[in-house]
């Protein structure tokens, strides 16, 4: 029964990821004084892509064709682990936060290989830059996990959220810093401004787009959907770990409804913040990303240090 509920939660997760992308577009367009497309436009885009014939270059191997499926499956698996509207689901035990980072690494490995598969300069450049950004973001992300694990003494996401719920509204400096650091890392990992521009195809400014430049048709549809799910994953991680109030602790219909509603409100707020930052900030030069991620690492490191210095009994 619980497994069925976990499956339904996963399906809800991946089905609502395009709406989040649509809402983000609405926020950005509003701020830029433009008329936004409908909230459901990403669904139409995905359906259009799935119906098109994919075109594959001659030098491509089986890795190129298999990568979209692998990337989507690792992203869906990650989505199934994260408690979306209910904690205590059995899938949260299958993997913890460190394994989650490993899943993203697996998807990214294959995506980088697919970028190099065709033998063009664009793909190699995208793969090289993507591995650079992700390797610099790893220490910050792990330090944020550490800070969380030192307070909650667990890396299981469901248990960590229950710990935060049980201790009530506590203003922890370590959590504030970890949240800020995690937000900066999330922007880098999902390829948003100021690290990468998700709408550009100019060679000097692409990172993620350069790796998937050769994809078309249903392959491109799968990868686009996977990146929308990834954005939602990071959003859900941030709001549910640091502000888990409202999440369902039992499986009654009422608490599930409350959980869904509170999650929706929190995500709406976070997306407005993301949209604001995308509109206000400009994209950084590639070698400035190193300073940006060092700053994220500094924040999470300070979070860990302030946990040790300020938050525990001596």
């Amino acid at each position, binding site marked *: 029964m619980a497994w069925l509920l976990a499956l339904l939660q996963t399906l809800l997760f991946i089905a609502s990821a395009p709406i989040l992308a649509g809402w983000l577009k609405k926020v950005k367009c509003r701020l830029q004084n433009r008329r936004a497309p409908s909230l459901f436009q990403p669904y139409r885009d995905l359906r259009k892509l799935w119906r098109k014939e994919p075109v594959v270059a001659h030098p491509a191997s089986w890795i190129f064709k298999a990568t979209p499926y692998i990337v989507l499956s690792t992203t869906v698996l990650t989505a199934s682990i994260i408690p979306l509207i209910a904690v205590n689901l059995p899938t949260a035990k299958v993997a913890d936060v460190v394994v989650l980072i490993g899943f993203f690494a697996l998807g990214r490995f294959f995506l980088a290989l697919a970028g190099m598969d065709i033998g063009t300069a664009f793909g190699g450049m995208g793969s090289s830059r993507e591995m650079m950004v992700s390797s610099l973001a790893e220490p910050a992300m792990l330090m944020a996990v550490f800070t969380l694990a030192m307070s909650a003494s667990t890396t299981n996401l469901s248990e960590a959220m229950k710990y935060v719920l049980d*201790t*009530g*509204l*506590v*203003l*922890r*400096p*370590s959590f*504030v*810093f970890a949240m800020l650091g995690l937000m900066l890392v999330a922007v880098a990992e999902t390829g948003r401004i100021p690290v990468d521009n998700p709408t550009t195809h100019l060679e000097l400014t692409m990172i993620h787009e350069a790796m998937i430049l050769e994809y078309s048709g249903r392959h491109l549809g799968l990868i686009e959907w996977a990146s929308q799910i990834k954005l939602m994953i990071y959003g859900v991680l941030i709001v549910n770990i640091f502000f888990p109030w409202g999440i369902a602790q039992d499986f009654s219909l009422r608490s599930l409804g409350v959980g869904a509603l509170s999650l929706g409100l929190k995500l709406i707020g976070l997306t407005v913040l993301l949209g604001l930052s995308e509109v206000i900030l400009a994209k950084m030069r590639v070698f400035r990303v190193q*300073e940006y991620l*060092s*700053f994220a690492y*500094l*924040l999470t*490191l*300070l979070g860990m*240090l*302030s946990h*040790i*210095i*300020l*938050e*525990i*009994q*001596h």
Partner: protein
Amino acid sequence: MEITQLSHYQQAILLLAALIALTSFLMLGQSRLLRLVFIFAVQGILLSITTALAADVLDSPHLYISALLTLSLKGIFIPIMLQRLVINMGLHRDMETLRNPARVMMAGTGLMVFSYYVCLPIVKLSPLITLNTIAISMAVVLLGMLLMITRRQAVAHVVGFMSIENGLFFAAVVSTYGMPMVVELGIAFDVLVAAVLFGVFFFHIRSSIDSLDVDQLNRLSEVEK
């Protein structure tokens, strides 16, 4: 004391202490002078909020006056003076590139761990709730000194000196019930006078050696080379 057992005001003090430490780190990494002065102003404002909260937690109303003094002097007045000084000297277009930002930041982190280690016996002694922050205040003092060591611009030296004083003030608020009012006022006016004097001094230095780079002060040595 576990943080979960503290009241919200006390948790806010801990959070503000951590933010003050963050501003010290940010000052270490800043290459532009106007932003440095701005971060210093933010540090002063955070300090005044902390003092006001400490006044509430520790039940000592004279800390409210201290908070107001800190806000006006360190949060508003001195930063404005420094900003005008920087603009008048035309330094706001200079950028001092740090040679080794990674090493400076690692040294800063090491100083923070060191100050925690050194303050550990003190923290164990006292039942005062907010005493954990004394390690942070010592870290702010040490980071201010590190700022003075690693910078060549004289204005950055002034900011470092002021942030040392910030750290000492923070330590006083947190560990005792604030300093006696007379001492407080005396120190505040001393700092103000020091800031004014620095401004006058800088014009003199600039006119005699034509730059504000403290490494150039070596030229004023009397010894035959």
